[in-house]
């Protein structure tokens, strides 16, 4: 990276020490692509080498749902991209295709390429977290300073903390009236800003100690029971393929050995065998007892069915999707509880259940999350509706302490 040109977005990224980031929206057409374009253009001026991919389809001339025109995605000479080669037919940037990724799609296989000159690009074919992890590794190996993932529709997977360190949240007039935009943005921010378990568990234990008179206990539920999904034996090269399973690629640490009960690792370990020892060391010191349910499925097993949980079990570690059903299974417990999800992308609580849940004194925390870099607002919707831009920015600024940028300025 060379000297930075003036770009509030990139200056904020640098200030936070964020390397890779995702742009996600509170709804479709919230301004994600416009924000991505701004990031690419500003990066080009400051000499940053980017690796860019989208979990949706970006750079196509018209939107696949609304049929409205979409902004072209620029690439500067030397910029890296990952896309299905077949999607680049309408793009103008000449691209040197460097390596295939093995990611297949109806547009053809996804390749990593380097733009040989400035022009437009089309991004398609990348759609899974596993793809993002693979590409992140390859982009950096090929010399990218930053990786940027563009989200799609209302999908949040691009901001998985294993894929990126920072997230830009896009919101705008497409949502509806000013009040609609504020409401949707507040919900989006609430999800992105769920507190980290690191502090939340300590605070929770401290708050409970006086009432209970004994230490708080916890229960852990894995994402998937060990035998829930077939092994990849059907795949012809399962052993090699598994080398790129998310866990190995993202955490850089070995999967804990279930036979070693003391080998507690600090978070970030998923996959086969993950069901053991998910509570970090620091939490274990605070929690008097940790019950594990390695055979349970956090997604479907009701906590109430775990008969051996006592009233002291008030911290629940859930590795999988935290849905309304999960929250409702805790809701009626007579004492306050702390539900710890893996990350914000694992939290699927509806507005109503979340409100009900927190009003009863329960709380939610996450083990890890990508840092919120800022919020971009788009006062113009694709249908032509416009909101007062100054007021829009001020209303969104009132919701958060991170910078808010008008993407059209």
């Amino acid at each position, binding site marked *: 990276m060379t000297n930075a040109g003036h770009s509030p977005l990139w200056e904020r990224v640098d200030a936070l020490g964020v390397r890779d980031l995702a742009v996600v929206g509170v709804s479709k057409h919230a301004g994600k692509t416009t924000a991505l374009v701004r990031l690419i253009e500003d990066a080009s001026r400051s000499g940053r080498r980017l690796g860019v991919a989208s979990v949706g389809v970006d750079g196509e001339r018209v939107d696949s749902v609304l049929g409205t025109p979409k902004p072209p995605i620029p690439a500067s000479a030397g910029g890296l991209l990952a896309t299905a080669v077949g999607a680049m037919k309408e793009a103008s940037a000449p691209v040197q295709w460097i390596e295939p990724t*093995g990611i297949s799609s109806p547009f053809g296989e996804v390749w990593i390429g380097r733009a040989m000159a400035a022009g437009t690009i089309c991004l398609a074919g990348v759609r899974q977290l596993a793809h993002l992890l693979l590409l992140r590794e390859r982009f950096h190996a090929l010399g990218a300073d930053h990786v940027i993932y563009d989200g799609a*529709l209302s999908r949040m*997977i691009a901001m998985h903390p294993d894929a990126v360190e920072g997230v830009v949240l896009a919101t705008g007039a497409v949502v509806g009236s000013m009040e609609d935009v504020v409401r949707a943005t507040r919900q989006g921010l609430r999800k992105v800003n769920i507190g980290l378990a690191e502090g939340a568990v300590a605070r929770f234990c401290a708050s409970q100690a006086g009432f209970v008179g004994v230490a708080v206990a916890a229960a852990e539920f894995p994402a*998937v029971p060990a035998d829930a999904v077939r092994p990849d034996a059907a795949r012809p090269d399962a052993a090699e393929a598994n080398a790129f399973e998310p866990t190995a690629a993202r955490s850089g640490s070995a999967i804990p050995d279930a036979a070693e009960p003391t080998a507690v690792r600090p978070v970030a370990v998923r996959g086969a065998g993950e069901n053991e020892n998910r509570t970090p060391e620091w939490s274990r010191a605070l929690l008097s007892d940790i019950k594990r349910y390695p055979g349970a499925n956090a997604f479907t097993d009701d906590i109430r069915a775990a008969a051996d949980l006592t009233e002291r079990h008030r911290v629940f570690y859930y590795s999988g999707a935290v849905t309304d059903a999960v929250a409702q299974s805790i809701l009626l417990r007579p004492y306050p509880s702390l539900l710890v999800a893996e990350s914000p992308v694992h939290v699927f609580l509806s507005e109503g259940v979340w409100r009900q849940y927190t009003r009863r004194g329960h709380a939610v925390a996450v083990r890890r999350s990508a840092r919120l870099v800022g919020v971009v607002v788009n006062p113009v919707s694709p249908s032509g509706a416009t909101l007062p831009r100054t007021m829009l920015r001020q209303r969104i600024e009132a919701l958060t302490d991170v910078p808010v940028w008008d993407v059209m300025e």
Partner: protein
Amino acid sequence: MRDLRRVRPYGDTFDDGMVQFSFSLPVPYGEEAREAARQFVAKMGVLEPQVTYAADLGEGMTFFVVYGKTNHDIDFTAIKTPKVESPVMDFYEINQFIRERIGRKIVVLGACTGTDAHTVGIDAIMNMKGYAGEYGLERYPEIEAHNLGSQVSNEELVKKALELKADAILVSQVVTQKDVHIPNLAELVELLEAQDVRNKIVLVCGGPRLGHELALELGYDAGFGPGTLAPEVASFIVHEMAKPAARSDRGGKRQ
């Protein structure tokens, strides 16, 4: 030989540009309503709009059929749409492929999710009797097919997928309002990702408003439109299952 670079609608003769619209307006039936419909279509840039049919729907609503002409044309030769690359096999070839390349029965779940109760699409793919002369997946000896029916919640679908160790999930969305099928389809993908099983399941959606491009945007592996038959879907699933997972070595073929 017609010029496919300048294709225009066909009504009575080639290139007459005739098009037909049908829609309702929330206005009471009458001559003013007919004129409103005519002006509305004219505002869309359509030439010579003629209201050929109007019907009183009651409640102050009127239904119209309007004809008109358009000068626009399409370059058919420049159109490229994404397609699945895997070849379509027949019933016998698919079962043989599963025996030889996968080595066990595969588990396929099908469901109409969310508020959608229209199972015509998923039934055509899944039910034993099939559709249009093609058996459905339930008839395939090497496929363990589970049709969960209509109005299945995403949570229920994921629960079943984990219980049955699904290899593939087919989601049908036929009739939904206000594009609710889009967040509904996206939520299923996000749930599977959160459960850490997305990359172990072939995920396919289908319906009249779905194609491969929207499917990709939603995080699905493919999206099949109306008229798709069971062998097309089954061929795609088994070829996807037989592919190596995404990898970062240079083993892939160069295009």
